């Protein structure tokens, strides 16, 4: 069985999007609970970036597209 290397989906800090909105996006797109979504949002806010998912490349690209659709800055990078 060939292991598929995951890619990290990274969200970058964006000082215009509302914190409450970012938390909602994380909950809505990734199914995170309130606590984890808030932790990730604060990591983005304070550290400049946070990994919100790790997926095979095609799924990571889809996640990034969905985040862009929601107005967030997101990239994918090899783990």
């Amino acid at each position, binding site marked *: 069985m060939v292991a598929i290397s995951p890619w990290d989906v990274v969200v970058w800090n964006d000082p215009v999007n*509302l914190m*409450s909105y970012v938390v909602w996006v994380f909950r809505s797109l990734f199914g995170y609970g309130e606590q984890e979504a808030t932790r990730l949002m604060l990591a983005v806010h304070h550290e400049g970036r946070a990994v919100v998912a790790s997926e095979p490349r095609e799924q990571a690209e889809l996640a990034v597209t969905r985040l*862009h659709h929601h107005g967030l800055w*997101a990239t994918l990078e090899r783990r």
Partner: protein
Amino acid sequence: MSLRCEATEQGVLLSAGSMELSVLSALPEFLASIDGSGPEAERLHPPAYRDDDEAEREFQRLVGDDLDGLHRADATELAEVTRRLGHGPIELEVAQAESLLRAVGTARLALAARTGLFDLDELPETPSTPQQTLVHFLGVVQESLVGALSDRLDTPSPS
């Protein structure tokens, strides 16, 4: 401010005063005015690959038009919602409310980019220009919708 968003069993109950409705009704035209160039377009089409130009070109080739289509669909939903709101409070399905939330957010980001507002901390507590007032207002609309949609996320689904 007489905009009201409330979670319901089916989705979100939405009502707006005439001033809010007037502003929201103008957004589809503003969104349609965003062409492929300028700071707004740049903000709405961020790169997916920071360090790989070839992968980024391929990504944009595959999904660039899709993203534009998704934004247009949200703007169309916004136009329909504001048309219905003109007749009084309306109940939106969750997908419609989410579409409205994204369209308002897109307009807010585009307006901020167009006016050079890159950091909310630069926005004075009391907005002093029409653009600042609009960015502030759209943020309030977003918060209201997020509140109602988050209430639904927190409500257990019937088994």
